[in-house]
């Protein structure tokens, strides 16, 4: 079997493995961990669109995750709306918020953009934390109902919910793959690699980056909504800088700008952090060092390393 053939079969194998995985995990706890990893993978794919495709370090995305999660949670608990309406509402709201925030923040460049978006993310976080009459502040939202039955399919069991999340992850990958292959996706890469050159061949750089920002905010909202529906309770930590930094870690370990990288990165890092929980807080010591080493010696992440290996083998 040649390496090229392996590379072509890899996506199918990965899909098969992720479909089988929920069935073979030893118990409910691991199933929950696996499902949460799928949720974080969606978040990482979203972040990858703005960071990997468009090359903009947005630090506001935990804010969109929080907005998505709280929109879903509050619609379900306070307005009694079904999950199947609450989740799309969260995605729509995050897209709109992403469009507005992107339009404003993207006028700043480089470090200024990173710091601006960081401030926006913190404003989201602090507002969620302090607006007690709406969000219950530190107490958070409890007793969020899960997704109701969809025709004959019931989502009562963790297994069914796990497949629901997986379906969303596959859809996310399909959307980002389509995006990357489309002319819009290619203008994103062009704008990332050389903004002045892209502008000079007639690309509307601002519109392109805004598109990337909106899509990635929508995906963060989707991940947030699933998180709320799956976990059943929600605190302001969902929008915290820790969530932001973790998501960033997933994307960078996996490989910026590659399609499967963020998913691989999430599974590896989130999986490892679960395994390393035995070591208590040591895992962040290791990840902190890993992040520094990765960016220095392997800036393209795991996906980049694999691609380099395959390139050499060919």
């Amino acid at each position, binding site marked *: 079997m040649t390496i090229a053939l392996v590379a072509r079969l890899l996506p199918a194998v990965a899909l098969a493995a992720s479909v089988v995985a929920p069935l073979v995990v030893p118990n409910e706890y691991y199933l929950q961990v696996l499902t949460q990893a799928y949720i974080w993978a969606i978040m990482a794919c979203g972040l990858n669109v703005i*960071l990997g495709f468009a*090359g903009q*370090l947005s630090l506001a995305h935990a804010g969109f995750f929080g907005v998505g999660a709280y929109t879903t949670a509050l619609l379900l608990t306070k307005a009694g709306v079904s999950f199947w309406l609450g989740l799309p509402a969260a995605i729509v709201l995050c897209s709109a918020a992403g469009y507005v925030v992107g339009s*404003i*923040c993207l*006028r*700043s*460049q*480089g*470090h*200024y953009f*990173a*710091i*601006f978006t*960081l*401030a*926006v993310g*913190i*404003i989201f976080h*602090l*507002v969620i934390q*302090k607006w007690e009459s709406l969000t219950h502040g530190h107490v958070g939202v409890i007793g969020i109902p899960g997704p109701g039955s969809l025709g004959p399919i019931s989502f009562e069991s963790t297994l069914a919910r796990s497949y629901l999340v997986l379906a969303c992850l596959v859809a996310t990958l399909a959307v980002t793959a389509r995006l990357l292959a489309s002319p819009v996706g290619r203008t994103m890469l062009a704008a990332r690699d050389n903004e002045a050159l892209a502008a000079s061949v007639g690309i509307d750089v601002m519109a392109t980056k805004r598109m990337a920002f909106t899509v990635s905010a929508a995906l963060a909202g989707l991940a947030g909504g699933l998180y709320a529906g799956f976990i059943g309770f929600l605190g302001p930590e969902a929008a915290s*800088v820790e969530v932001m*930094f973790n998501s*960033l*870690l997933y994307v*960078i370990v996996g490989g910026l700008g590659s399609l499967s990288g963020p998913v691989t990165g999430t599974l590896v890092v989130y999986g490892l952090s679960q395994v390393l929980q035995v070591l*208590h*807080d*040591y*895992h*962040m*010591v290791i*990840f*902190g*060092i*890993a*992040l*520094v080493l990765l*960016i*220095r010696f392997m*800036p393209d992440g795991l996906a980049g390393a694999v691609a380099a290996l395959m390139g050499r083998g060919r």
Partner: protein
Amino acid sequence: MELLAQQILNGLVTGSVYSLVALGLTLIYGTMQVPNFAHGHLYMLGAYLAYTLVVMAGANYWVATLLAMIAVGGLGVVLDRLVFRPLRHTLHINSMIAALGVLLFLEAVAQLIWTEEFRHMESPYAGVVSVAGLPFTAHRLILLAAAAVLMGALLVFLTRTLAGAAIRATAQNLDGARLVGIDTDRMAMMTFAISAALAAGAGALVAPISLVYPSMGTLVTLKAFAIVVLGGMGSVPGALVGGYLLALAETLGGTYISATYQDLVAFVVLALVFTVRPAGLFREAP
């Protein structure tokens, strides 16, 4: 009247901390173009080292403060050599991400050594002094003076010494500084050491009047960023004045308007400024 005086003093105390951290941040940004997201974590380490030396080892408070500054200054050199210097000529995004790695690492190390428990240390100056008939906590007044000494020393160093002039030259124009024979790598290392020591000094000074915990640096970093951006990235006077202004606005706003949203002030102002002027207050938009 008494409340107002107290709040102004509190504002100046917090302002001293903000300014010391923001000064380091702006110097590092000016000389190396690195937004050091881990800067507040050096402040946190300073607080912990002072706490450990005083409470565990029974050291004199000022000796402990000095040792903490030296140790964290040394760490600054290590960070520059091992993390930031190798990334200096790569993509901007890389050094930002590396700074986030350093942040995660330092916080985890602090959690490991000192646990997540809130720590508190007694000040050697626990009493209350009366100034013009108004009572003030002695340590707060001492903190103000000590911070002023640190800032004064920094300004003298930057304006009156050759090394200081070289650092300013590097910050103003990297290529120009190289052209006239300044070893800019060395200046960057020195800047990192000084900035880290200033942050650690702020941490050690504030430890006796606040709580010490692993994530205490996060919000301070973020506010220092707001200050530095508003005051002009790389600007020393901007960081100095901006730190005091923000802290006074927060304290007075928190007392007389609403304490709930006190922490939001800095970020809302930052967002507004960027909305109106995408490249910050003191730079022309491209």
